[in-house]
Each structure stands twice: as structure tokens, then as C-alpha cells.
């Protein structure tokens, strides 16, 4: 505890840096995944290829990916952009499947009705398909958020500051309190992000709140998803 007291400023700064490292990949990854997911869902033949190839991206070990980024992007070795781009790739790898599943989960009757009412293709996408895939997109985004927050720690290995610094520094100097503080801080950020996403969902998708039994089931399912996501 004494370590934490004397290093509160450092931990707070690292938490802010860590968050600033995580937020762009989550948002950009989401935005990139929607059109790709739309294509995968719209053209059934492409679906298998897109989902497998992008899914495989997630299996690329993170340290080599971080190290190769400057070679691909031409960025300086220590630029945080390397980590942001790599995390965005992981976010897309996870999110595309949710985007495709989400768009595919929209009731065909509702789409047919929307067309019959006189929605143009563009209006139907923005006003019907996208909002109705919201619950599945949100579940996917929660997984992406947890995964990104945990992966960002590895940035410290290649010299891009994040909460991972506390692990490396704590291990090298044998200060268990520092490592523990790092773990708790990462968890804290992951939980806060998750709560914010759930809150956002309540605001944007007020219609999706179900009665209790159905809701309990959905929550259980997304919890499992978050756990598997964080574990992989």
C-alpha cells in the first residue's frame, strides 16, 4: 500500500495514457467493422472468407505485430500509433463477426415490411438494420473493449507507455505491490468501459430492454462472451 501512496500520480498518469491508447482502436475498429460485416452478411459467398481471414488476424501474436508496425507504417519505433493501429486490427478481427451476425439477426419480416413501406435501401440500413442489430453489436463491442484494454498493456514491451509499465517495472524491481496495482488498474478500466458501454446501450437502444427472464439470459451470455474474449 505504501508503494501505491507514493506513486499515485504515476498510476493516474498511466491510467490516462492507457485509456487514450485504448479508445481510438475501439471506436475506429467498430466503424471499420460495420461496412465489412455488412458485406459479409449481404453477399453470403464472401461471408466465410471474410470471417475466417479476419478471425485469423486475432491469432497473430501481439509482440511481433507491434514490432512490425513501424516497418509497415513507416512510423518511428516508439510512436504510440504503432500500438493504436495494431489494436485496431485486433478490434476489427473480433468485431466483424459481431457486425455480420448483428446485421444477420434482423428479422426478415421487418426488413420486408420496411421495403414495402417505401424505405430506400440507404434509409433502410440507417433507420432499420443498424439500430436493430444494436444489441448484438453492443455485445461484440463489450468483448472488443475488454480485449483492447488488456492487449494495450503489451505496448510497454516495445516501449509505448501503458499500464503494462507497472508489470515490467514491478517484475524487474521485485515490487509485488506495483504489479498488483497494474492488474487492478487494468481491470478497473475494463470494468468502467464495460459499464459505460452498457449505459450507452440503455440510452441508444431503449426498446431492447426485455422482461426479466429474457434479460437475465442475455446478460449471462454476454458475460461469458466477455470472459472468453478477455481470456484469448
Amino acid at each position, binding site marked *: 500500500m505504501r508503494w501505491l501512496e507514493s506513486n499515485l500520480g504515476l498510476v493516474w498518469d498511466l491510467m490516462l495514457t492507457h485509456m487514450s491508447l485504448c479508445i481510438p482502436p475501439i471506436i475506429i475498429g467498430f466503424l471499420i467493422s460495420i461496412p465489412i460485416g455488412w458485406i459479409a452478411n449481404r453477399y453470403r459467398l464472401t461471408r466465410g472468407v471474410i470471417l475466417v481471414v479476419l478471425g485469423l488476424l486475432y491469432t497473430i501474436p501481439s509482440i511481433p505485430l507491434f514490432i512490425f508496425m513501424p516497418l509497415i507504417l513507416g512510423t518511428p519505433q516508439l510512436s504510440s500509433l504503432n500500438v493504436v493501429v495494431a489494436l485496431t486490427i485486433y478490434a476489427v478481427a473480433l468485431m466483424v463477426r459481431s457486425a455480420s451476425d448483428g446485421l444477420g439477426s434482423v428479422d426478415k*419480416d421487418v426488413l420486408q*415490411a420496411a421495403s*414495402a*413501406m417505401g424505405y430506400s435501401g440507404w434509409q433502410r440500413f440507417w433507420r432499420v438494420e443498424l439500430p*436493430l442489430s444494436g444489441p448484438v453489436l453492443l455485445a461484440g463491442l463489450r468483448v472488443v473493449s475488454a480485449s483492447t484494454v488488456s492487449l494495450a498493456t503489451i505496448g510497454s514491451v516495445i516501449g509505448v507507455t501503458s499500464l503494462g509499465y507497472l508489470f515490467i517495472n514491478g517484475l524487474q524491481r521485485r515490487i509485488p505491490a506495483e504489479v498488483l496495482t497494474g492488474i487492478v488498474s487494468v481491470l478497473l478500466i475494463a470494468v468502467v468501459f464495460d459499464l459505460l458501454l452498457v449505459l450507452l446501450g440503455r440510452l441508444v437502444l431503449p*426498446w431492447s430492454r426485455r422482461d426479466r427472464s429474457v434479460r437475465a439470459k442475455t446478460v449471462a451470455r454476454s458475460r461469458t462472451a466477455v470472459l472468453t474474449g478477455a481470456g484469448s
Partner: protein
Amino acid sequence: MIEFRSVTKQFPDGTVAVDAFDLAIPPRKTTVLVGSSGCGKTTLLRMINRMIDPSSGHILIDGEDTGSLEPVKLRRRIGYVMQNSGLMPHRKVIDNVATVPILGGVPKKQARDDAMKLLDTVGLDRSLALKYPRQLSGGQQQRVGVARGLAADPNILLMDEPFGAVDPIVRAELQQETIRLQEGLGKTVVFVTHDIDEAFLLGHQVVILQKGGHIAQVGTPAEILAHPANDFVASFVGADRGKRALRIQRVGDRDVVVDENGTPTGVLQP
């Protein structure tokens, strides 16, 4: 007036759903397309608002070829009611009803005010306006579907087995409501069903379809019952059995009508 002129629809998989179909649908009346599943009745209905385009032939609305019209604009001026209501689950009842006017550029406030009045028209309590569709019963949802179909005040209302999924009591209620609305508003209604009783109840003109969209018979319910065109029609409408094969039995000084089993169903009025 809606006219089908030698309309054929062949789907990409080779199925011919409709083959050289000709029909005139009179204005301000209810025309019911009735037949078993696979007879092409829904395909015919969806070709009217170009949800499906014919492979060949023409469909004319008041003399205008729908093939030359922009599908999205065409659909906005034709009401559409489908099975399972097809309501937008993420929009409140009032916004569902106001959908088409808003798409057509009516200011939101006015569209909502008009939608409120439509809830009265279809017999829904205004307190339901701010609920989401899933909070309503099946029958209520179907009424919202009808209100939505009427919202842009279209001349034509297409109804695709709208009461197929509700229970018999609610269905009977909705059927009466449909008759009342059609008479009151004078819409041209094209109604699809597989239920011959529903067809006879609602239809001024009934079109009995056989596989491939072939017309077995067109006529008023009375004409069809009196003179079935062939054995298929006779057996489809059940003219030879059950509650349609009625006989008169003399009881004292009154004529009692009995069905096939001899069960009395009513008394002939002098």
C-alpha cells in the same frame, strides 16, 4: 383500378410462380386472392407494389404502367399490411404508424397527430401510442399494422394474410373491422388468404387460384357458390359438403335449414 396484363413471374431457381396472369381489380372494392400455399397469391400481391418485379407482362394502376414508376415512390402510395404485423420493434407504436408520411416528407409533429387519429380509426386506445410493439397483443399489433398501412391515405391497400397468426376470436373481430374500414374509407383492398371463409366474408370479388397462378374462377362469393366453374373450385369452396351443403326441412309451417349432417342452422324467413 389495377390491371394485370399477361403477367409472368419466373424465379431465378426456375419456379414459375405466376404464368400469363390476367385480372382486373375494380376500384373501391375488396378483391380477395385465395388459394393453397404455392399458388402464387403472395407473389401476385407483391408485384403490385413492385416488391417483386414480373419477368414479363405489365401491371397498370389507373392506366399507368407500374414498370415505369420508381419502386420506392410507388410503395409509399400503396398501403401494405402483412402477417405478423412486420412492425418496427425499435419504434414506438405512434412512430410505426407515422412511418410512411414521415418518409414522404410530412413534418414529424403533424405526422404524429395524424397517427393519433388513425389509432382511433382502427379501434386502438391512444394510451398505447408510446408503447413498443412487443408490449402489445398480437391482435393489437395487427391493428397497428393496419393503421400504418392507412397512414399515407393510399387509394390501394394490400393485405398479405394479415390475420393468419391471430386467434379465431380476434380474427373475427379484425375481419369485421376490415369490412367496416373498407366501406367507410372506400379503399381498393387486395387481400390474400388461404381461408375460403375469410375470402367469402371480405371479398366483393373473389379470385380462386390454382398452382402457378392459374385462375380457377373469378366472381362474387354468391356466383362461385352457385356455379363452381369446375370440380377443383367445388371442392375448394366445400360446396358439396358440411355447412355449405344446406337443405330445407319442413317443420310444421316453417322452413328450417339443415346442414349435411342434418344439424339445424337456421330458419328461412318468409
